[in-house]
C-alpha cells in the first residue's frame, strides 16, 4: 500500500483526527492529532490490511514552537512503510502519549528521545535518561541548548577553547623571547622508535 492509501484508510476510520497525508517521494507521512496517537498506532498494527509489525524508530524534531514526534513503521508481511507524526502541545509542555504498549520496541527509543530532546512520553513505564548520566541537566538536542561549561570538574568544550587560546598566546610569547636560536623540530618528532623508519622496510 502507498502512503496515500494508508492515509485514506486512516481517514475513513478516524475522520478529522488525521490532519494531513503527505505522499512525498522523499518521506511519506501521516500527521495525526495527539489524542488519537495510540489509537492510530494500534489500528495500524492490528488491521490485516496494514499490519505494521515493526516500529523502526521513534524520534522528535525541535521546531522551536513545538516538537514533532515522528514514528517510522514498517510491515514485513505487506512490505510497505509509513511515518506518523504528531505535535506536542507546545515547547514548554512537550508531552506525547507513549507507544510502548503497542510496540515494546518503542521503549528505548522513547527513553532516548526524552533524554536528548526532552519530550515527555505519558504512560511510559520507565522514563529515565538512557545515554546521558542521571544527574545531567538539560536536553542537548534542543536547539536552545548550549555547550555546558563544566560537569563534575570536567571542563566543557567552551571552557577548553578559552584555555587553549590562552596557552597558545603564552607559548607564542615565550617563543618570541627565545631570540635567534633555532627551536629545533617539534618535540614529538624523533621521540618514537618507529620515527625515521621507512614504513615497510626492515631496518
Amino acid at each position: 500500500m502507498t502512503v496515500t492509501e494508508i492515509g485514506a484508510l486512516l481517514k475513513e476510520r478516524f475522520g478529522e483526527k488525521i490532519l494531513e497525508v503527505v505522499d512525498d517521494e522523499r518521506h511519506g507521512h501521516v500527521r495525526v492529532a495527539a489524542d488519537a496517537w495510540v489509537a492510530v498506532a494500534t489500528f495500524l498494527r492490528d488491521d490485516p490490511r496494514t499490519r505494521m509489525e515493526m516500529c523502526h524508530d521513534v524520534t522528535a524534531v525541535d521546531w522551536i514552537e513545538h516538537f514533532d514526534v515522528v514514528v517510522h513503521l514498517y510491515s514485513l508481511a505487506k512490505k510497505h512503510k509509513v511515518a506518523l507524526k504528531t505535535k506536542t502541545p507546545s515547547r514548554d509542555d512537550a508531552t506525547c502519549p507513549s507507544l510502548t504498549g503497542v510496540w515494546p520496541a518503542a521503549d528505548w527509543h522513547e527513553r532516548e528521545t526524552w533524554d536528548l530532546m526532552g519530550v515527555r512520553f505519558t504512560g511510559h513505564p520507565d522514563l529515565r535518561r538512557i545515554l546521558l548520566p542521571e544527574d545531567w541537566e538539560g536536553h542537548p538536542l534542543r536547539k536552545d541548548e548550549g555547550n555546558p561549561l563544566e560537569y563534575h570538574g570536567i571542563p566543557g568544550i567552551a571552557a577548553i577553547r578559552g584555555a587553549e587560546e590562552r596557552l597558545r598566546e603564552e607559548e607564542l610569547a615565550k617563543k618570541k623571547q627565545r631570540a635567534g636560536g633555532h627551536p629545533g623540530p617539534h618535540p614529538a618528532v624523533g621521540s618514537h622508535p618507529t620515527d625515521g623508519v621507512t614504513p615497510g622496510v626492515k631496518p
Partner: protein
Amino acid sequence: MSYFKELWDGIRTTAQGLRLTGGYLTKKGVYTIQYPEETLPIDKVTHRGIHEYDVDRCISCENCAKACPVDCIYIESAPDEKGKPSKGKAAIMTRFDIDYSKCLFCGLCVPPCPSECIQLGERYSLPGHTRDDMVVHFHEGGYPIQEKTEHAKSMIAEFRTENLYEKKRKERADRGIPTLRPAE
C-alpha cells in the same frame, strides 16, 4: 547411550579442529610481524597519516581550515604593508598549527587547497605527554611535503621562476621565523 555418543562427537569434532590447526605447523607463510622493528607496508599515495605541508607555497587562503569538520587547523600570516594579514603568493605564514588531539584524519582539508601544499602523508606516530605535544607547528618546517601531483610540480616551477622561495625565506629569516626546510 546418548552420553557416550555426545562424548564421541565432542572428541571427533575437536580432533578435526586440531588436525586443521596442526596443518598450519607445516605450512609456510608468516602472518605476524614484529612491531616496531618491522612495520606494515604503507601505501604512499593513499595513506592518510600526519599531514605534509609546504610553508613556502601556502597562500594563506584558509580554505583548508574552513573545510575541516573539527576546526583543528589554526592559520595566521604576517601583516603586509597595509597592516592586513598577507594573502596570496606573497603570504608569510606565522602560524600553521594542526591539533592532532582533534584531527580525524579525514582528508577533507586536502582537496580545497588551491596550491596543493597540504596533503596527508605516510607518518602515523605522534606520541606525546601533553595535549600541547599533539599540536604540530607546521610553519616551522613541520613535515615537508612529498610532491605527488603534476599540478603541484608545475606550481613549484612557477615559484622557482619568480624566485619566491628565496624571497620568502629571506623575509622569514628577517622576522625570526625559523625554517627547517633545507636550502635548495
